[in-house]
């Protein structure tokens, strides 16, 4: 049974590693959403390890006690159909655990799908994050600037990412701020994140999107609101405006370094927000409205040119 105990040891080692000898990215949160998720992860590891240990213990005990080499040659194992109470316990305990997890899971769902509770009273900063093969474009409509492959965010302020894609499905993921969400070309998804402390983080596309998936990453820098405003000002001073032609060039498949522009692509290439309304039934008013907005965008854009 050496290997069995070795196995146990292995599991324990993993558990120790997970709980903090080395800060694994997901378990080293820098924002409230990631914190909640890390909490759920550690909680489930803890409770599930208990079940694993129980099963291991029973298994090892049974294997040692009832091996044929130890039993007398004329031992005949009994015929046992089952026991109501034993089976009830085997159902009952998992049911209790699953119920508990279900409650936690539903709570967490509502937490991560909404504006972080901690920053409930602040207006969110809206950032449109769109992917194209194999880059990320970040548009800040409020600041009217756009970056490629890097992201600056203020700390202590909720951030609402609007995700969509100019190609295959991608998944926007900053492990230390919170879990990922898909970016698709026919609809816009919303991801609520926030950063608690300044620092650099890794962000990437987690969903397979073709040849360049591995390198489809971006850098995230969280900084104080003051530094962020300063950066915005700098950008406005130094960066060139983003023209439609330039943006079309950026969309071509390939990898690019980090870039900064003033203006956003949302004007000439708006996010696919209107295609996706739950009751996409063409009700007269709604269609007109979206058309109008499109027209406005178009005229807006012409003025700029």
């Amino acid at each position, binding site marked *: 049974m050496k290997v069995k105990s070795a196995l146990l040891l292995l599991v324990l080692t993993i558990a120790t590693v997970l709980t903090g000898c080395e800060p694994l990215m997901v378990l080293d949160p820098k924002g409230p959403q990631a914190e909640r998720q890390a909490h759920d992860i550690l909680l489930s590891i803890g409770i599930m390890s208990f079940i694993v240990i129980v099963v291991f213990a029973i298994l090892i005990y049974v294997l040692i006690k009832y091996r044929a080499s130890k039993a007398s040659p004329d031992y005949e194992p009994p015929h046992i159909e089952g026991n109501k109470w034993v089976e009830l316990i085997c159902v009952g305990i998992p049911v209790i655990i699953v119920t508990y997890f279900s409650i936690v899971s539903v709570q967490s769902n509502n937490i991560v799908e909404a504006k972080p509770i901690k920053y409930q009273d602040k207006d969110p900063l809206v950032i449109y994050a769109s992917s194209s093969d194999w880059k990320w474009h970040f548009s800040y409509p409020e600041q009217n600037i756009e970056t490629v492959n890097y992201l600056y965010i203020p700390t202590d302020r909720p951030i609402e990412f609007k995700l969509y894609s100019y190609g295959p499905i991608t998944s926007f993921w900053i492990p230390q701020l919170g879990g990922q969400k898909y970016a698709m070309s026919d*609809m816009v998804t919303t991801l609520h994140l926030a950063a608690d402390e300044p620092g650099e983080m890794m962000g990437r596309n987690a969903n397979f999107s073709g040849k360049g998936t591995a390198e489809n990453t971006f850098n995230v820098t969280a900084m104080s609101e003051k530094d962020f405003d300063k950066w915005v000002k700098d950008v406005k001073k130094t960066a060139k405006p983003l023209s439609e032609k330039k943006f079309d060039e950026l969309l071509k498949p390939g990898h690019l370094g980090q870039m900064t522009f003033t203006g956003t692509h949302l004007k000439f290439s708006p996010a696919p927000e209107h295609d*996706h309304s*739950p009751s996409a039934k063409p009700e007269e008013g709604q269609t007109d409205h979206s058309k109008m907005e499109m027209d406005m965008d178009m005229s807006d854009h012409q003025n700029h040119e």
Partner: protein
Amino acid sequence: MSELFPRKQIIGFVFSLVLTAAALAVYFLKLSFAQGMVVLVVTAFVQALLQLVVFMHAGESEDKWVIYGKVFFMIAMALITVFGTLLIFLWDM
């Protein structure tokens, strides 16, 4: 002679015509969406049951309950697929 007369089939046919007419009311009577859907769901499923029992003789062999079980299990799974998908894509998106 009475067994020569396909009574069951004729009653079934008349019923299915009536149900079809009832379903058509949705088109001709300008019902609201909710009312219309109720009518359609009722007429379609009753009609399906009618075909199953009257014409398809689902209940005549020794495997009656297996066949009914199988068909209703499948209908349940079909409904779960339809409504699960609608939940994901339309109602909670």
